[in-house]
């Protein structure tokens, strides 16, 4: 038994990592809906979810249960095979793309194996290309859902989304070419590590990140990425006023939830990519010599935990008065552990910065949705083809000339 375990340790670790990542991503997905509703509510001077659990924290759970127990009718006249395949395809591809993302610089040693954070091998030389390959297939979920529903609005939504994704995929791919030229590799880890070198004026930390040299590339990437994930202000495929709900109109219950989860998962993937390609991934914005900044995670966790405890004690429901202080205590304890065990604290630095950046971009997504009105369809196409694509091509040419003139740095 023991020998079987040790012989297949790599395989077992891989399975455990996959299950763990799936669990984390699905949980984050659920709370992302809560986060979005809360933030949009704040922007619109409302409270957002407040009924289920303290501060509406159990709302995602309630929504999940609701999705699971709703009736799931199959409309008459649908193409059965494709109709059932489409949500599965969308969800699988979205989940697969997040497997490529590396989440931390250093491995943990478990059972004599170096276990890296993130599923893909650290020497995956085609990292970014693999990601684009998966995104390229992601169109099918939406397009096929629209077609197979055998209904007007979904078909229009599906057509729109295919056209939109085809148009913006070009800009998305072209906009990262500048970064690839600077780093000289497709490997996501190497792209991050290349940004550790001193940058503008030879300053360290934040000044080494690609964002300074690739600000045009970043603009193109982020705009194209929002269009690629069908989010506001580019959420034309599900424009309610024109298309009811777009490609997923005929879907109910958990199949609808699968499209929903796929959309949120691709938001997370794109946020990961933004941080990795342009914002130094897991690198700290401060120079390496500023070791006191390593206490930043505890400095955030402990006061925030204390605030949650304080807020929880005053909460109006009994349930909140029990749960919220519990969550606060866990946060404070976590912060204390980081202070007391320097080895853990050092290990957590990389993931901490990456997660902070990802969270920032997720907030940015929600912020945009709460602020900007939707584009008109012809504006969307004109913007993609006539502005974004030429701009990203000019960026590639400019970067190439700069590298020829001054070298990669």
């Amino acid at each position: 038994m023991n020998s079987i375990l040790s012989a297949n340790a790599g395989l077992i670790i891989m399975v455990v990592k996959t299950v763990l990542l799936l669990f984390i991503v699905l949980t984050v997905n659920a709370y992302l809906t809560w986060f979005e509703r809360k933030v949009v509510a704040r922007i619109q001077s409302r409270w957002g979810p407040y009924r289920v659990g303290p501060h509406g924290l159990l709302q995602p759970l309630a929504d999940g249960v609701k999705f699971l127990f709703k009736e799931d009718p199959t409309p008459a006249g649908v193409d059965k095979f494709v109709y059932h395949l489409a949500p599965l395809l969308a969800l699988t591809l979205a989940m697969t793309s997040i497997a490529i993302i590396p989440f931390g610089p250093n491995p943990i040693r478990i059972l004599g194996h170096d276990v890296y954070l993130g599923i893909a091998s650290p020497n995956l030389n085609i990292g970014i290309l693999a990601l684009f390959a998966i995104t390229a297939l992601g169109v099918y979920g939406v397009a096929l859902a629209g077609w197979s529903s055998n209904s007007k609005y979904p078909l229009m939504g599906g057509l729109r989304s295919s056209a939109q994704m085809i148009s913006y995929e070009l800009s998305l791919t072209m906009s990262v070419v500048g970064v690839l030229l600077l780093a000289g590799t497709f490997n996501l880890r190497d792209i991050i590590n290349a940004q550790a070198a001193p940058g503008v004026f030879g300053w360290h930390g934040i000044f080494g990140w690609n964002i300074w040299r690739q600000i045009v590339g970043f603009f193109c990437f982020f705009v194209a990425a929002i269009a690629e994930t069908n989010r506001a202000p580019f959420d034309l495929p599900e424009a309610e006023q024109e298309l009811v709900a777009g490609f997923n109109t005929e879907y109910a219950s958990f199949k609808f939830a699968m499209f929903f989860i796929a959309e949120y998962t691709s938001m997370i993937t794109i946020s990961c990519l933004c941080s990795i390609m342009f914002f130094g991934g897991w690198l700290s914005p401060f120079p390496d010599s500023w070791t006191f900044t390593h206490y930043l995670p505890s400095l955030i966790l402990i006061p925030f935990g204390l605030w949650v405890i304080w807020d929880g004690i005053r909460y109006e429901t009994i349930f909140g008065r029990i749960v919220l202080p519990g969550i606060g205590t866990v946060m404070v304890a976590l912060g204390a552990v980081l202070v007391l065990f320097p080895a853990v604290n050092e290990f957590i630095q990389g993931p901490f910065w990456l997660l902070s950046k990802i969270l920032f971009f997720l907030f940015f997504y929600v912020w945009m949705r709460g602020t900007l009105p939707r584009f008109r369809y012809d504006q969307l196409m004109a913007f993609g083809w006539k502005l974004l694509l030429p701009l990203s091509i000019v960026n590639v040419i400019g970067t190439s000339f700069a590298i020829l003139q001054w070298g990669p740095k």
Partner: protein
Amino acid sequence: MTPQLAVFFVLAALAVAGAINLILQKHPIHSALSLIVVMVALAGLYLLLGAEFVAAVQIIVYGGAIMVLFVFVIMLLNAGVEEHTSLSKLAGGPGLLLAVALAGFIAATVARSSDSVQAAAQNGTLAPTRDISSMIFKEFVYPFELTSFLVLVAILGAAVLAQREKS
């Protein structure tokens, strides 16, 4: 049987099954979906041979871009179930004969050069993307540029054809 060989057989079976399904399906969307399966299975085979870059490009270009356009056009034209005419039914016989002949020809070629094929398959080394790019832009730069010129002409042709007549 090594794990690589097992994966090879799975992918190869998937590709062949997809190709056969492509012909047998009545509806164009189903045929297009089968073709996507073939493309992705081929990418898997490239990956098995250690050609990471080619595999990724195979999916991006064929699985993504080209097949998305196929599906898009089929959706846009709302193409229905294929209708057989007497002539297209007649074409089945010679087509089958030709297919068998082609398969035999390829099998014979592979069988004759099986040593070199197996050597290539079990090499397992990764072809770095850098080598591919230097090959394209140094050794084969003229064929490469000629091809891109051809593509450019095709794009211009498409643009001219799609242009509305000025009234």
